């Protein structure tokens, strides 16, 4: 098992690498490792597993590096998180991130949930009505094609079908032959959703990335952000927009569409996941709680999206 932690930070002016060494020393009893310090280096050498040496190489009181955990015991990994929490007060800023989004989840889990569950608004009830209509009417060939192309297999397809229907309208797809990967890639790149160069090569990567393009396009066209306008028309530098878009993209795909690529991408998505777990608990035997009310899933969905600042406005 493997996971990389990235860290970057600046020490407080009153603090030194020796202080970091001291704080880590106090924490070392929890970790099977050797600790050394010389000049501007603090080095942690792990005595079991295949974890890399963790090195804080201070350059004018700044650190910037990564550490790959290759151990056998996940607990050791979390002990390193605890160590970062321990030394954080010594830093003016200390930013931690990791491959699997585990840091975000770990930190957020220790705090109260910020998302409030609320009933559906009258506009959101229309969304519910659409889903009920869909249950009566089978998917047409275009919808079937887009759903198949998405490679998504959620346990309940109602939300996916709404996304697909909106997407078909946005892309003006009127027949199966109108499905044009090139146009989808062009639009995604034009939207500049978390980076303009994310999708470049049509044939090679399309199948892998289509479901993310689908969600990016849907969020951009079908949602407003904090009453400031449609997402696609907003500048990226609006406060909180980038992190909300990121959380919406990965949160929708993992929580509602059953497709995963690790843990939480940022603290907002971690908040969404915590909120979901609060209501959908897995027990000690792995049992999974399922809720058989359609309204309830939409209440979760809209509560989460509202927390991110998004309001569904639909597609003309």
């Amino acid at each position, binding site marked *: *098992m*493997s*996971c*990389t932690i*990235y860290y970057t930070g600046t020490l407080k002016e009153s603090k030194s690498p020796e202080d970091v060494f001291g704080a880590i020393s106090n924490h070392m009893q929890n970790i099977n490792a050797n600790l*050394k310090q010389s000049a501007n280096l603090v*080095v942690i*050498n792990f005595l079991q597993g*295949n974890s*890399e*040496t963790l*090195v804080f190489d201070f350059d004018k009181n700044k650190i910037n590096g990564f550490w*790959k955990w*290759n151990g056998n015991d*996940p607990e050791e990994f979390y002990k390193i998180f605890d160590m970062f929490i321990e030394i954080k007060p010594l830093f003016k800023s200390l930013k931690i*991130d990791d*491959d*699997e*989004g*585990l840091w975000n989840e770990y930190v957020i889990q220790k705090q109260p949930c910020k998302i409030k569950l609320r009933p559906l608004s009258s506009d959101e009830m229309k969304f519910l009505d659409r889903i009920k209509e869909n249950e009566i009417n089978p998917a047409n060939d275009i919808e079937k094609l887009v759903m198949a192309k998405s*490679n*998504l*297999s959620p*346990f*309940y397809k109602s939300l996916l079908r709404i996304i697909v229907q909106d997407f078909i309208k946005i892309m003006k797809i009127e027949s199966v032959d109108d499905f044009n990967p090139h146009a989808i890639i062009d639009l995604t790149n034009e939207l500049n959703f*978390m*980076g303009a160069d*994310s999708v470049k090569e049509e044939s*090679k*990567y399309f199948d*892998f990335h289509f479901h*993310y393009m689908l969600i990016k396009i849907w969020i951009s066209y079908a949602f407003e952000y904090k009453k400031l306008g449609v997402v696609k028309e907003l500048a990226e530098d609006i406060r909180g927009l980038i992190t909300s878009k*990121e959380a919406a*993209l*990965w949160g929708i795909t993992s*929580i509602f569409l*059953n497709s*995963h*690529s*690790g*843990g939480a*991408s940022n603290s907002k998505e971690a908040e969404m996941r915590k909120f*979901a*777990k609060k*209501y*959908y608990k*897995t*027990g*000690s*035997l*792995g*049992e*999974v*709680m*399922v*809720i*058989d*009310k359609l309204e*309830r*899933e939409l209440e979760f969905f809209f509560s989460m999206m509202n927390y991110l600042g998004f309001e569904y406005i639909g597609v003309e």
Partner: protein
Amino acid sequence: MLLYVPNIATIMQSGNLYVYRLNNPVYYVDPSGSLVWPGEIHNAVSNHIQRKQLRNYRRWITANKIVHYGGIKYGFANLYDKATGEVWEIKPLSYYDKNTKRIASEAQLQRYIDNIDGAIAGSSLGSGSFYYFSMGKVVPVSQVYKVYFESHNNGMIYYWYDPIFNEEAAAAITLMLAAMAAGVYNGSSVPIPGF
């Protein structure tokens, strides 16, 4: 209503693959809860690629190549081909879409390359998909995952995964049983036909 995710071992013993049908739960969150650790899929991708390269191309690619930086400092590259010096780093697909993370992981790969004599960024190892059977080390529950990966010419390999149930999981288990019967089951993953 509570549903129990069945254990693959029990299903195999019973011989009845339809035990695995769950009557399609309508609402379901945190389906990856049975994964012991998200890095489990990371390792599955690494193992799958190694085996595929060995099986198809007689190419020996090792995992966790140790990289010495001098003194007591060292690191581990995810995949390394001794014959060509190629090095690869494996990341979740979300890295592909997040500029800062992509840059950080490419810098990480570069640091490994810089510290291995003659190493170069790995060439593409293609894209693929396979079924992965997690045996659930914390809770006695097994889970079948459909895992996708894609590799690039810059040494980066990205992956994502879906937990699966119902008919598809039953089909995956059938594949696994056939692989076991043929003596080619490799312990945790089965390639999806067509890839």
